[in-house]
């Protein structure tokens, strides 16, 4: 079978992996080699769905010994099966890299024969890249749950990021929908966390100590296939950020690729819910929010009409407006429309000038939402309503479809 056909099949199966980050790892080009890692990450293209293409994202094989309800590659599906060889993967990666198509490789896989066997193949592919082709670009590899500790450690030393997908938010859901394999996600996750922290500690003593997944680990879960509330999900993410020091949790709206009695029938994938979860996730990682501030047991689902930050502001309407020239950084971060970047700029710029609304604009602060919640030099923006109901209405997003032309000749 030719490489073209393999690539088509195995990249098609890999596309549901949401992670695309190529950031967080600074790696110099090896002597006589090719490629380096950039701390900021670089996106190389944008596919038709608007998601960036940064890494060459591909499965090693779509053979799988497991039979998970939501997965397109499950054993019982009648699809074409194939596998790359480690060398083929390495060759394509290098040739793509030379033409500046990609920032590196994201290698995942179905489980062929056994977890250990699969992990060995993945490790071999990235070993060829690093050791034989002297490749310094970004490598993200999946740890196969159930693979031995030694293999995962070996892969972690080669890759920039190594990750395990948690797939579903609770153990009950996992047991319901998966085929034994996922009952133990946290063991490999913990292993990676330990590897990373050991390496950081060792590198403090000696610069020459080996790096272990310098870009950390991430994970991904499916949203909407099981009945968990947003509160459960957000709490879980928070726990993983704190406990396993995860860099990112990716959420993936459930898209029915199989028909299975265990799966719900949805009219369309819950893309908006996924979007809201990402917003909540960013609030936890970059806006110093805790899960309890975003959701409560009384309101366990995120508001579809209002983004979670605006929602929080409306629930705490009494603390606003805040004075831009005095409020501390943490409070500025809580203002809808002001993010970490704007807040930092404000904090620095107000040392030399007392800021007006005009100044805020030139700082690049977007006032569309912020204007309801701030004062400059003690004054509100002219003609801005202070009424709760008006503010609420201006903040909420309309998701009804707009007017459109009805078909003329269709019956």
């Amino acid at each position, binding site marked *: 079978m030719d490489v073209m056909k393999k690539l088509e099949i195995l990249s098609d199966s890999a596309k549901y992996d949401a992670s695309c980050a190529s950031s967080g790892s600074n790696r110099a080009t090896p002597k006589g080699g090719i490629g380096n890692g950039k701390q900021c990450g670089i996106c190389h293209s944008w596919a*038709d769905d608007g998601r960036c293409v940064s890494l060459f994202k591909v499965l090693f094989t779509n053979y799988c010994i497991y039979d998970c309800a939501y997965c397109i590659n499950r054993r019982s599906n009648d699809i074409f099966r194939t596998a790359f060889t480690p060398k083929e993967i390495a060759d394509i990666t290098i040739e793509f890299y030379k033409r500046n198509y990609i920032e590196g490789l994201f290698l995942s896989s179905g489980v062929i024969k056994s977890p250990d066997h699969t992990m060995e193949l993945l490790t071999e592919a990235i070993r060829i890249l690093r050791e034989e082709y002297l490749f310094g670009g970004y490598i993200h590899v999946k740890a196969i749950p159930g693979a031995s500790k030694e293999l995962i450690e070996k892969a972690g030393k080669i890759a920039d990021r190594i990750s395990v997908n948690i797939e579903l938010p609770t153990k009950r859901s996992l047991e319901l929908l998966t085929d034994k394999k996922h009952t133990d996600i946290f063991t490999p996750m913990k292993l990676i966390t330990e590897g990373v922290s050991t390496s950081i500690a060792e590198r403090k003593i000696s610069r020459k100590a080996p790096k272990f997944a310098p870009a950390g680990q991430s994970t991904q879960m499916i949203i909407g296939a099981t009945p968990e509330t947003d509160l459960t999900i957000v709490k879980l993410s928070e726990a993983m950020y704190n406990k396993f020091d995860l860099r990112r949790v990716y959420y993936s709206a459930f898209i029915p690729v199989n028909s299975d009695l265990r799966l719900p029938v949805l009219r369309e994938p819950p893309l908006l819910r996924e979007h809201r979860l990402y917003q909540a996730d960013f609030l936890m990682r970059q806006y110093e929010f805790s899960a309890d501030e975003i959701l409560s047991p009384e309101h366990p689902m995120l508001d579809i009409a209002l983004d979670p930050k605006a929602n929080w502001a409306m629930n705490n309407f009494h603390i606003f407006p805040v004075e831009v020239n005095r409020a501390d950084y943490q409070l500025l971060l809580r203002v809808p429309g002001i993010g970490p970047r704007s807040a930092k700029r404000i904090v620095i710029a107000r040392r030399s000038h007392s800021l007006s609304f005009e*100044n805020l604009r030139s700082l690049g602060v977007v006032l569309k939402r912020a204007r309801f919640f701030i004062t400059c030099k003690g004054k509100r923006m002219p003609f801005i309503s202070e009424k709760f109901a008006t503010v609420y209405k201006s903040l909420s997003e309309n998701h009804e479809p707009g007017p459109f032309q009805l078909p003329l000749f269709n019956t």
Partner: protein
Amino acid sequence: MSRGRFNFHFLTHEFMNTLYLFDGTLETFISIIPVLWAISEPSDRLLSQSEYTPGIFEKTVYLDERSSADLPVKNNNIPKEVMNAVTYAFSSGIVEAVEKTPQYLNYIKNNGIDAMSHLAEPSVSVIFKAARKTSSEAHKLKGILRFRKLGNILYGPYFSKCFVLPILAEHFKHRLPNESWILHDTERKTGVFYNGKTVEQAFFSPRELSEITNEYEKAGVEDQFETLWKKYFDTIAIEYRKNPKLQRAFMPKQYWRFIPEVAKRVL
């Protein structure tokens, strides 16, 4: 002196602002920064000669590469960040950024390097935005620039609004140190050639250019990895989530000509 009712004394030399002129090239611009750093006053302006229209309220001074030699005191301790900011701002092609450069330098000199983030100060804001325009376009191009293999050389033509060639050359020198490559700025008709050791300026004569273009077209058809890449690009998008508007927001169509996976869609 003047016997009329109005005293034009305030128009004499020392009370007038200065308008500095230069030839508009990056090289000259970099060379005159130390001069401006040393002598700029808050209301001075800098213009490329081609933008200049004579006025009566400013005295004009022409600066070139040799001007820095005339400085009474050699002043080379301009912070690197400041140097980068004004160079990037110049490369953005925004006239106002060049115009405000003397004012900016004066402000930073008087208020220290932290003043670079005093964004409420007009000159700082203008330079900051212009510099950001260049650096963000450079960052974008580090991603969307594509090479095609012509023989042993990787040839990378691209379109850009700002002049980002030096930034890209530096980037690829570190990334592909053992390859030979050409970066070709098709807007400004200039480029660089890297032979595996040093980066050199490359000039393209019209004949050379048409030869390269032919080779380029041919290589695109023959290269199996490019075919693979296009296939990959088409497969990786999720049908359910199609969002061409978002795609164009990240990757505007004006760049598409040189991006093989989408180039065909422009024609």
